[in-house]
Every structure is written in structure tokens, then in C-alpha cells.
């Protein structure tokens, strides 16, 4: 994906160019996929027998959940890379990913609540997945808070990388704990994971939306990293010679 010939592109200057060329394509793909997914999910997919039209929320809820988890894994990946190879770009990638990940985690919770209210009568249920999602949201906030609080860029990146990795290791432990906690305490088996038996069309819509979100994320993160590169490398000659910086 973005790892072709990694070490060549590890230099901020090279990556700036590459990201600049790449992000528009991802943005276009994301838009097309989103249109396709939404059309399939909202115009074509049949009504659910049990949940009526309300089930259509899953076409944003599930992809958002997936993305919140994928992005955290990506953050952990770049963090390991950064601490191992001491590359500046890794810290920037992790930092660029965090806000989008937090946003998707929030969306997952928000849409989850809006789905739960009509279906199970409560705005919030301590379902294992929703609770784990909430904790994941806290982990994102922790990373953002920590990196924002440290002024020194290098220390900020490395501290952030460490907390991202520690968090990633804990996510399965937390998920297991919450799942156990949920099954023991919950009376009726209310579960937002029990999706309606999926018509194929529904599955396709979810997949399309998930891909759309994924490409959206890549496009946005590449764009953000360019901003970060400009900020951090502002004293480099190559920055001064960029077209867009000429007064």
C-alpha cells in the first residue's frame, strides 16, 4: 500500500512528494466507493424483517468500528517502526492517524447509541463491543493528550509511540476482560454484534463503506503528514524551494 520501497521514502522530502501525488487518487476512490456503498445500502438493500429500516445504521456503524481498530493497529505499527529505526516520519504518521482514529471511535459510539435506542430501548448498553470501543476511544484521547502536552518533538513522538504500543498490547486484554464481564453480568443476551442475518447486498454495502472509509483515511493521513512535514522541516532548503511556498 504505502510501504513500497519503504526506506527510500523514509526521508521526509521524498515522502512529501509521494504523498502529494497519492492522496488525490485515494480521495477520488473514497468518494466513489462511498457513493456506491451508500447507494447499495440505502437504495437497494432490502428492509430487515426484525429491525425495519433502522438497521441501515450498520452501514456506517460497522465500518466506523472497523476503522477505529485498524487505525489503532496502524498507529502501533508505525510506533514500533519509529522506535526501532528511529525515523522521524513514523512519528508523523502516527500523529496524523490519531485524530481520524479518535473520530471513527466516536462515530462508532454515536451511531451505536442511535442504533441501540430504537432496537433495545436504551441509548447506551454495556455491550462488550461498545464498552471496548469506549475504552479504545479513551486510549486515543490519551495518545493525543500526551503528544500535545510534550513540547519537544522528538520526546513527544517517542513517548506517544510507547503509549500507542502499550495500548495496543492491552487492547486484546481489555477486550477479553470486558467480554467476560459482560457475559457474567448481563441478564438478557442483548448484543449489538448480533447483526441481522445478512443478505448479501447488506454485506457488500458494509464492505464498500469500509473500503471507502479506509481510502478516506489514507488520503487524509497522507495530506496531514504533508502539513506536519512542512511544519517540522521548515528550515530545510528543499522546503524553501517548493513552488507552493514562493511568496
Amino acid at each position, binding site marked *: 500500500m504505502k510501504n513500497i520501497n519503504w526506506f527510500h521514502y523514509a526521508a521526509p522530502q521524498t515522502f512529501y512528494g509521494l504523498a502529494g501525488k497519492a492522496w488525490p487518487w485515494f480521495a477520488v476512490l473514497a468518494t466513489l466507493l462511498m457513493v456506491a456503498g451508500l447507494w447499495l445500502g440505502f437504495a437497494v*438493500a*432490502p428492509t430487515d424483517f426484525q429491525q425495519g429500516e*433502522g438497521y441501515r445504521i450498520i452501514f*456506517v456503524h460497522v465500518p466506523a468500528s472497523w476503522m477505529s481498530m485498524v487505525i489503532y493497529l496502524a498507529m502501533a505499527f508505525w510506533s514500533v517502526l519509529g522506535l526501532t529505526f528511529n525515523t522521524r516520519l513514523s512519528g508523523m504518521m502516527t500523529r496524523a492517524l490519531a485524530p481520524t482514529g479518535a*473520530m471513527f471511535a466516536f462515530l462508532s459510539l454515536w451511531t451505536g447509541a442511535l442504533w441501540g*435506542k430504537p432496537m433495545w430501548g436504551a441509548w447506551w448498553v454495556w455491550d462488550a463491543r461498545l464498552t471496548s470501543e469506549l475504552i479504545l476511544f479513551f486510549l486515543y484521547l490519551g495518545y493525543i493528550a500526551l503528544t500535545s502536552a510534550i513540547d519537544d518533538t522528538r520526546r513527544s513522538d517517542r513517548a506517544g509511540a510507547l503509549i500507542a504500543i502499550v495500548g495496543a498490547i492491552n487492547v486484546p486484554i481489555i477486550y477479553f476482560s470486558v467480554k467476560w464481564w459482560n457475559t457474567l453480568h448481563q441478564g438478557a443476551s442483548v448484543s449489538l454484534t448480533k447483526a441481522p442475518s445478512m443478505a448479501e447486498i447488506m454485506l457488500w454495502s458494509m464492505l464498500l463503506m469500509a473500503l471507502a472509509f479506509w481510502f478516506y483515511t489514507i488520503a487524509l493521513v497522507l495530506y496531514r503528514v*504533508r502539513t506536519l512535514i*512542512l511544519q517540522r522541516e*521548515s528550515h530545510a532548503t528543499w522546503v524553501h524551494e517548493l513552488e*507552493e511556498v514562493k511568496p
Partner: protein
Amino acid sequence: MRWNSWAEFWAMGGYAVYVWGSVGVTALLLAVEVWQARWAHRVVLNQLKAEQAVAQLPVEELM
């Protein structure tokens, strides 16, 4: 096509608030994110442009 009319589509079988509340907030947040990223980029570019302008002034003007 599922829907017989636009009215039906917007009503979403009575779940309008929940469905459009979800889709709407999603669209809103995505848009805000994109806008914020572009805005941040513009700020940095303007800053760099200003620095370049100062750097290119003949030395006498700076004195």
C-alpha cells in the same frame, strides 16, 4: 429501488431520526476533518510564505 417516493426515503420507516442522525453526523464529522486538515495546511503554507518574503528582502530594507 426500494423506495416508492422521496418522502418514504426520508422517513426511513419511522427511524428517520436515528438513521439520519447517524449518517448526518458521520458526514458532518468527515467534512469537518477534511476542512480542518486543509485549513491547517493553509496556515503552515502562509507562514512559510511570509518567512520566505522576509528572507528575500534586500538587506537594507530589514535595517
